[in-house]
């Protein structure tokens, strides 16, 4: 982001940016930056809080009124993070193995049932917000879990999406599943708590278990890309954890 600021400034455009890692702002010295002590993914701080969001924007835009720079300012309000981590992380001890897969038909049936039960509330949430972020994969909701289950036999299934290989598509399918669940709960239960949503999705839901089984199969896989997406924490949220996933080399980090 800081690099982009330099490109735009050199083109005669004034820039102001917000950032979550103050040490990076200090090192890269973009012309004008506002440090936010917020969790990552919340640049304007709080969803559905126009007043707070506008405070962030105004604090950033005030930097456009300063003479000279680079200038870094600190937004005065803090949105606390847990134990230095700026997003949800799976508990390190929650690791499944390929022996936990069991009867895949049963696993998939449980996920389907869970997703169907959420459907009415998901539809209400979409109608209320006028939008959904589900759909990055391009697959229909009912196609998502079966596509993931297709990997649990240890083979890479055919991609149903033209122009996209199965593994990049898998990444987007995981995103869509999480969005389907959390869009539903955040609206239905009026929850805005990223830790609670992470715990529910990854530690309590049937689909979370399906994805942890996928992680276990990936670690045991001979396919280097499958192993890489686990080692680099591209699927399951282990980025903010204490130590790499057991069974991986952590070479990606």
């Amino acid at each position, binding site marked *: *982001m800081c*690099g*982009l*600021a330099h*490109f*735009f*400034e050199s*083109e005669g*455009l*004034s820039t*102001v940016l917000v950032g979550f*890692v*103050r040490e*990076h702002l200090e*090192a*890269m010295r*973009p*012309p004008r930056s506002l440090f936010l*002590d917020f969790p990552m*993914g*919340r*640049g*304007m*701080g709080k*969803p*559905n809080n*126009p007043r707070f*969001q506008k405070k962030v*924007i105004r604090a950033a*835009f005030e930097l*456009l009124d300063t003479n000279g*720079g*680079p200038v870094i300012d600190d937004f005065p309000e*803090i949105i606390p*993070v847990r134990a*230095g981590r700026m997003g949800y992380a799976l508990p390190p001890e929650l690791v499944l193995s390929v022996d936990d897969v069991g009867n895949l038909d049963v696993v998939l049936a449980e996920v389907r049932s869970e997703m169907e039960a959420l459907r009415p509330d998901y539809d209400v949430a979409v109608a209320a*917000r006028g*939008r959904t*972020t*589900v*759909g990055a994969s391009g697959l229909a909701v009912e196609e998502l879990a079966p596509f993931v289950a297709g990997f649990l036999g240890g083979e890479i299934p055919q991609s149903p999406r033209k122009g*996209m290989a199965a593994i*990049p598509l898998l990444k*987007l399918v995981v*995103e869509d599943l*999480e969005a389907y669940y*959390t*869009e539903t709960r955040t*609206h239905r239960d009026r929850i805005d708590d*990223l830790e609670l949503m992470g715990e529910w999705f990854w530690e309590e839901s049937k689909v979370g278990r399906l994805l942890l089984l996928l992680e276990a199969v990936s670690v045991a896989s001979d396919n280097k890309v499958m192993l890489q997406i686990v080692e680099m*924490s591209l699927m*399951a*949220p*282990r980025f*903010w*954890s*204490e130590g*790499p996933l057991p069974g991986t080399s*952590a070479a990606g*980090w």
Partner: protein
Amino acid sequence: MTKISEMPAVARHFISNLDLTVTSHPSWTQPVPANERRVSIVSTAAVSRRGDKPFSWLAKDSRTFHKTDRDLVMTHVAVEFDRSAWQQDLNTIIPLDRLEEMAADSEIDSVAEEHYSFMGAADPVTMEKSARAVAANMKREGVNTVFLIPI
């Protein structure tokens, strides 16, 4: 304040080992007064209009969306940031509604027609060509102020 040294092990190792490209000759453009600011947002959230080509994992290119677009999806490769906020309210990461309100209140001049997204996981150095093309588009529509928002 969250410090790199206090982050959990995996993140600390990754973030402290990032290759930060520090320019030796930082550029500087004098901002225009607030009431003359025409603002375009640049996000590194890898969002795009539904149906647009998804970002690749180390994408150098950008996507464009209109100020009235709300049907956006995200194809960012990283998992470390919270998605639940933008799922609830697009303005949490791309505050188009807030900027429109500020324009209506004359806090800024106007909101650009077009806004841009990059893949934040990629090395910014590789984005230079795309960034300069975006800058040319911005200047064509009279933008003078860029609001950069990471994810």
